[in-house]
């Protein structure tokens, strides 16, 4: 720590802090426009001059570029400094258009504030308007170069934080301007980062323009409703309308960074396509009815079905998008009121072993604790089957921070050459063959063992089964591994060395692993890898040196599982067949659970429906008809059902099949908690009252229960969370009020007892994919930056940027078939066919095509079957 004096105030700050920040953090104001704590220094605006006395010498320095030193004395407001700063401002203002009345930044503009602060009213220079043309070349961002003071913040953010580098200083002298290469229209990831750091009104959100003045906005801190990163957002509202989403650098692990979905994808809240009243199907048409009628009808039908077929004839699909509280009440409602244990959520249906595997990895300390933010402190990053740039963009920004400030190395293992722009010194891509992810991880393990990259004696002592593992891998030489996986021996060696090197390594395990048939094997291999390195390490950090982060798809995919919307666990992963767990919930819920609340045999709700074992289905906030593989079967399964109830904000494909539809509130109208993929429980807050006639999901459930003669009574989400706190051990200590300031991580809060690790002995065979002569291509599907679920689909902003789904085709294949970018191609599988525009790329291996699966209006799942889908391709 360093002690210094700023404006007669004694201050202590960490070494390396610059004067600017030291002053700011201690309530002393220094003007400055180019400095930004999350960006590297630039020292370009020249406004932050201070007088520094050090070792008897007094000099003028730029405070943002001057680190503090012991005993330093700083004055920020001498007459000379003020005179200097004023003249710098005069220069800046000489060319400024001063069009504040029509500028959205007005009221929160750095330039305005400093002008006001220095009482600048008359400049000495003749002012000139530059009249540079306004750039409006994309749907979301507008650039007004006349307002730009060339502070360079947006350039640095775009390059360093977002990794895109779409913009830079162009030209020189008076003609300098922020622009794209060759003056092309802006075509970037539209993270809006430039907008968020610009101190002036140069960058403008086109979706917000002229809709409100800054001071009329109410800001409500909340959590992004899209992906499982769980970025903290600020919902800006006026007259109960959400007008824009901003972010606060000081709140949340995202440090004010968002992706396009989080920042621009909010307009679905006021979409006129929202369901406005409850609907009941009459003569095949969904018609508006009152809440009372709809609830009464559902209660009556459920009672009838229960009486005739028993509760287990009703299935329930919980939601990866609704809050923890909604999901908790959902499983309670199903188990207690409907008396069925046939409940699940889509993520668990897609990868049924994942919960157990994650739990195991937690028990052995392989799972990242506390926060995703830790990724920014990584020394090595290893993305396995994870397309971070598309699926979890802000993990990408955290990773880039580690690469930039921590000199982290990067390894990406994937089937496709996924895009991740980085400046990592070691940037290794393990582009492997299909179905060889498990052998690839084993190859790393083998190399680490063979080359003794870790202290094997230590590992042997701390674990069981190392010998078996060694003998299993005996004949699995690196050469063989290289042949199987298609990754060169040298690359395998390099990657192994990086994974085993000292320092923190974060493995992000992606959807391509989790949803693959060989997923469990790969995850077990990854755990072996973690064990090998962690037990060899002498460092006793909480999560060891290497940790696994399991990606989840949606904002609350983790929470839906945590809350027990799965057939095998009560909330908190308590075994449902365990008598004491059953007692625990019976006591809390003051009920006697029906005998049917048992794990039963392995099943899947879709199969059950197909086998006609289900008569009714209750779907909360999901669209399985489109979002579950093998769309044809799902549709057929739903057709077998007698009665379908759907709660949703939009009339999705699933809702259209329903007999009753309830309109539900969106994130802006909701409170409660979401749990992100690092098990951080974060709180969202109500920004506006429910739009239309919508209700909270849990409220609807309670209303139905009441009609069915069971009181589930809660006044608010807080009461539900209190019950969870009381009943579910891993959530004890979670308090709603406390969540305002800090997220709660159940892994950290409840260190599960660690057992000795026993290596999983796996045969490192690759999955063979049978070729079909008529269907020579393999269909891959995956995430997309622009879309996720029915929210993005109803956001005009997102659709305006990404309006059309596409199919990626390898360049060689395309050449052979004479397919060019933008050509329409026909994709046929055994199940179905569809036409899409082609995008020719080198990212893909030959004989494979890729379709993003989250353009929800394009039902890619109808092409898919349960495992690998083979397709044929032709020019349409």
């Amino acid at each position, binding site marked *: 720590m360093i002690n210094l004096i700023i404006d007669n105030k004694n201050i202590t700050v960490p070494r390396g802090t610059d004067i600017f920040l030291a002053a700011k953090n201690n309530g002393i104001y220094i003007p400055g426009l180019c400095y930004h704590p999350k960006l590297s220094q630039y020292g370009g605006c020249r406004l932050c001059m201070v007088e520094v006395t050090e070792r008897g010498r007094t000099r003028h320095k730029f405070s943002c570029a001057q680190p503090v030193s012991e005993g330093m004395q700083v004055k920020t407001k001498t007459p000379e400094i003020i005179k200097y700063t004023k003249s710098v401002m005069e220069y800046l203002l000489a060319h400024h258009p001063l069009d504040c009345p029509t500028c959205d930044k007005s009221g929160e503009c750095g330039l305005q504030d400093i002008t006001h602060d220095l009482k600048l009213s008359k400049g000495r220079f003749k002012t000139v308007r530059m009249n540079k043309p306004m750039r409006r070349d994309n749907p979301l961002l507008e650039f007004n170069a006349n307002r730009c003071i060339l502070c360079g913040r947006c350039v640095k953010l775009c*390059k360093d934080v977002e990794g895109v580098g*779409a913009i830079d200083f162009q*030209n020189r002298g008076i003609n300098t301007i922020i622009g794209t*290469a060759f003056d092309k229209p802006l075509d970037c990831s539209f993270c809006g980062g430039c907008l968020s750091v610009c101190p002036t009104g140069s960058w403008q959100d086109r979706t917000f323009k002229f809709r409100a003045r800054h001071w009329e906005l109410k800001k409500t801190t909340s959590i992004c409703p899209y992906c499982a990163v769980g970025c903290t957002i600020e919902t800006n509202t006026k007259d109960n309308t959400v007008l824009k989403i901003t972010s606060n650098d000081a709140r949340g692990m995202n440090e004010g960074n968002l992706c396009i979905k989080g920042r621009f994808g909010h307009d679905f809240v006021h979409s006129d396509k929202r369901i406005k009243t409850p609907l009941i199907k009459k003569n095949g048409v969904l018609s508006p009815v009152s809440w009372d009628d709809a609830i009464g009808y559902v209660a009556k039908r459920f009672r009838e079905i229960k009486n005739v077929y028993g509760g287990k004839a009703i299935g329930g699909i919980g939601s990866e998008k609704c809050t923890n509280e909604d999901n908790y009440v959902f499983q309670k409602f199903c188990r207690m009121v409907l008396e069925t244990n046939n409940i699940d959520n889509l993520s668990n249906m897609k990868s049924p072993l994942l919960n157990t595997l994650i739990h195991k990895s937690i028990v052995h300390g392989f799972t990242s604790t506390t926060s995703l933010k830790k990724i920014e402190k990584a020394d090595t990053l290893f993305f396995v089957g994870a397309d971070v740039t598309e699926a979890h963009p802000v993990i990408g920004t955290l990773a880039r921070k580690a690469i930039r400030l921590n000199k982290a190395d990067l390894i990406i293992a994937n089937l496709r050459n996924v*895009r*991740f*722009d980085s400046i990592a010194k070691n*940037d290794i891509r393990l582009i492997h063959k299909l179905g060889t992810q498990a052998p690839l991880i084993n190859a790393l393990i083998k190399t680490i063992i063979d080359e003794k990259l870790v202290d094997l004696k230590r590992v042997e002592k701390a674990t069981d089964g190392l010998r078996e593992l060694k003998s299993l891998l005996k004949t699995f030489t690196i050469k063989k591994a290289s042949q199987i996986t298609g990754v060169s021996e040298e690359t395998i060696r390099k990657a192994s060395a990086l994974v085993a090197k000292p320092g923190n390594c974060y493995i992000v395990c992606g959807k391509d692993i989790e949803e693959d048939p060989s997923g469990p094997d790969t995850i077990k291999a990854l755990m072996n890898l973690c064990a090998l390195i962690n037990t060899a390490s002498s460092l006793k950090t909480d999560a060891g040196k290497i940790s696994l982060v399991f990606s989840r798809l949606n904002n609350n995919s983790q929470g839906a599982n945590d809350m027990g919307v799965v057939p095998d666990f009560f909330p908190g992963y308590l075994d449902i067949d365990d008598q004491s767990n059953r007692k625990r919930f019976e006591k809390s819920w003051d009920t006697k659970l029906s005998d049917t609340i048992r794990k039963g045999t392995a099943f899947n709700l879709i199969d059950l429906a197909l086998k006609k074992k289900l008569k009714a289905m209750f779907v909360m906030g999901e669209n399985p008809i489109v979002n579950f593989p093998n769309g044809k079967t799902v549709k057929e399964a739903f057709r077998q059902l007698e009665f379908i109830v759907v709660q949703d904000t939009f009339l999705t494909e699933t809702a259209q099949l329903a007999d009753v539809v309830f309109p539900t509130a969106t994130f802006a109208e909701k409170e409660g908690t979401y749990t992100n993929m690092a098990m951080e429980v974060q709180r969202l807050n109500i920004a506006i009252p429910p739009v239309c006639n919508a209700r909270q999901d849990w409220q609807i459930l309670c209303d139905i229960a009441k009609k069915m003669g069971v009181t589930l009574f809660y006044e608010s989400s807080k009461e539900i969370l209190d019950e969870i706190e009381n009943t579910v051990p891993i959530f004890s200590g979670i308090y709603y009020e406390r969540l305002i300031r800090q997220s709660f991580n159940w892994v950290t809060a409840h260190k599960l007892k660690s057992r000795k690790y026993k290596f999983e002995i796996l045969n490192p065979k690759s999955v063979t994919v049978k070729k079909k002569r008529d269907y020579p291509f393999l269909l891959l599907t995956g995430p997309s930056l622009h879309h996720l679920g029915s929210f993005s689909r109803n956001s005009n902003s997102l659709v305006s940027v990404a309006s059309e789904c596409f199919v990626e085709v390898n360049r060689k294949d395309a050449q052979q078939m004479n397919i060019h970018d933008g050509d329409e191609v026909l994709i046929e599988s055994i199940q179905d066919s569809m036409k899409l525009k082609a995008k020719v790329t*080198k990212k893909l291996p030959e004989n494979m095509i890729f379709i993003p699966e989250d353009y929800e209006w394009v039902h890619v799942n109808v092409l898919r079957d349960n495992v690998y889908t083979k397709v044929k391709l032709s020019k349409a």
Partner: protein
Amino acid sequence: MNTLNRQKRDQNEEIDFSKAEEILDAYEGVHGALIPVLQKIQAAYGYLQEPVINLVAERMNMNASEIVGVATFYAQFHLQPRGVHIIKVCCGTACHVKGAPKIVEKFSAELDVPVGSTTKDKLFTLEEVACLGACSLAPVAMIDEDVHGKLAPDNVTQVIQKTK
């Protein structure tokens, strides 16, 4: 690894990249080599064209916007093809006083080309420069290596004809 630029480059196949690749090979792994690379590439190709810049971006793991930024910062780099003859009209103080703007205007009208650009037939590039150091001859212009002093709008046509 900059994959975006690579995709962009894939779409452009008519240009012979081999010379640029050679230059880039020679500077492989050298830090801060952008300016010499651009100089050599400009010497080989005449100007810095878009597909070649995208190649440089990909090979040097930089963003095209940054490279164009550098290229537009220095007067020595050109992003547009240049003419056979380069006309540099001096716009320094002395020439300005002696009517340089009129001279520029005349050249521009005569060649039908805005300042900073090249004629359609690729014969002339018209540029303004700060000072040629020949103030005693003001207003002055340089065409390739020849200095033309004491210009008047009226003899601009003649000067052009002579050069052709």
